[in-house]
């Protein structure tokens, strides 16, 4: 899977947390960033592979099974959907419709139940008081793909962010899980 966002939104951390969640469920996982101009606000991409077998390949993911778009302002700037199959999962951080975002036409013919939206920035503001959507979206990702469980995501978040910060992120992720699951 591939995550698109901007520097400062925790794009790299999200992929790492997802790999830890998969690892905690006994699976093999590999997370890595595509480093470029990793300044705050600049487009950043990260990747995560999850498999039942050891992962040997070290190449970027050009044909993802799933995408998370942490920042919808990237939609018309970066080739976000490159290599995505028509049954690929897409989770976009937005409260707007696909038509509003100007991508409804693009997803015609795509399995519509696999293109989902979650207002992760709003959820993050509510739970964390800060617009940090990365851990929130992992909750939505778990609901959308079932590639990892919400419990595993929560465990990975708590390992990285102990204490109240972890709890708040877990609550936000659970909120996103329920939002997507509904």
């Amino acid at each position, binding site marked *: 899977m591939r995550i698109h966002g901007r520097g400062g939104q925790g794009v790299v951390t999200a992929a790492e947390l997802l790999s830890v969640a998969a690892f905690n469920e006994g699976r093999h996982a590999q997370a890595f960033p595509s*480093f470029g101009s990793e300044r705050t606000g600049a487009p950043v991409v990260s990747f995560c592979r999850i498999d039942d077998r050891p992962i040997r*390949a070290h190449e970027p993911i050009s044909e993802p099974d799933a995408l998370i778009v942490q920042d919808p302002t990237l939609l018309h700037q970066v080739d976000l959907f490159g290599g995505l199959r028509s049954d690929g999962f897409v989770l976009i951080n937005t409260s707007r419709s696909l038509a509003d975002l100007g991508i409804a036409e693009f997803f015609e013919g795509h399995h519509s139940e696999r293109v989902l939206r979650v207002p992760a920035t709003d959820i993050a503001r509510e739970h964390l008081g800060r617009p940090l959507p990365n851990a929130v979206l992992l909750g939505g990702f778990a609901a959308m793909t079932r590639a990892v469980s919400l419990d595993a995501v929560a465990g990975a978040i708590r390992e990285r962010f102990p204490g109240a910060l972890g709890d708040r992120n877990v609550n936000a992720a659970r909120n996103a899980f329920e939002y997507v699951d509904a």
Partner: protein
Amino acid sequence: MLKQEEGSQAVAHAVAMCRPEVICAYPISPQTHIVEGLSDRVRRGDLSPCEFVSVESEFAAMSVAIGASAAGARAYTATASQGLLYMAEALYNASGLGLPIVMTVANRAIGAPINIWNDHSDSMSQRDSGWIQLYAESNQEALDLHVQAFKLAEELSLPVMVCVDGFILTHAFERVDLPAQEQVDAFLPAFEPRQMLDPADPVTIGAMVGPEAYFEVKYLMHAKQLDALDRIPRIASEFEEAFGRSSGGLVRGYRTEDAETIVVALGSVLGTIEDVVDELREQGVKIGALGIKCFRPYPLDEVRAALARAGRVIVLEKAWAIGVGGIVGQNVRLALSGLPVSVHDVIAGLGGRPITKRSLRALFADALADRLGPLSFLDLKRDVVERELERQTAGGRPGPHAENILKELGVVAARSH
């Protein structure tokens, strides 16, 4: 203990368990996370006794390591790219003096053009510096090689460079099996220096040597490197016995037994190659891969034995001798001299350009169809190069290559006026 961890943190873990007494470092991407992890451990008192020396340059980092090692301390540092070049003079001193320093090189391209991404130009530029060079293909192997490196360095009294692909490994979260401290302690005995600056028993380390003895002192480096060819497989098998997994050694073949075509490579690209080898094997293609784990000393006999029965060898390498061709390729040809094997150098992955399975499939298909020449460049944008060459001969002041090509690719906007 199994852990999902960043490559740099896994290396820091391994180095800390080897109980270095002096760590000196200057931060440079993509090595920085390793020495940050170590500096945290020293600060917290988790790694003790150990002195962490923040220096003002890589030249100083290696100089401090030399001083520490000469004073009898187990010394470690890490660097990359320009940093490795900046310490070049001191590298030759460390090896010439026979000091068992261990250093991680988080492999990165060399400027100009400035570039922070991975290739092997940095460590390959120092292949003849007298350091032993080991190349890791995964984070697990990166971790394991550091434990082996201290043992090897100290048995031989020679410095060892552990080369770990920058970003691709150093910044990747993968599953690693972290050994217990007691296991590492049992495997790696306390450092017993062969030579030491000791006020109670004074010696000179680094004496001036004239034509009467320079050759002999220098030859000893070669003799020790050849000795390493016996020790490296022995240490790897002791490691396997102690830790229950195979890591390191001189070379490692993958499905090479009956292979008519063998792909040779170093480092993290091996896993990607092996995946493509499996795909082709399913189609009945007799293809295999050979990882060179230790490039210095060069395991000539092992490379020859592994490749002798292949008709075709593809050497995929992340650096090259500009104006000549492949570096690893030259060494492979040396190992195969007199044998009817065709060797094809393929330069790939420079400056972080991804080496993808898609490109490898096309490359191997070309090789199998006898369309591959002696030297090729994987995914090089030839049209871009041709147009820049044309601009350079068109007269006037065509300007710098890097800016022209970035402009053509649309990476930077046109010049402002």
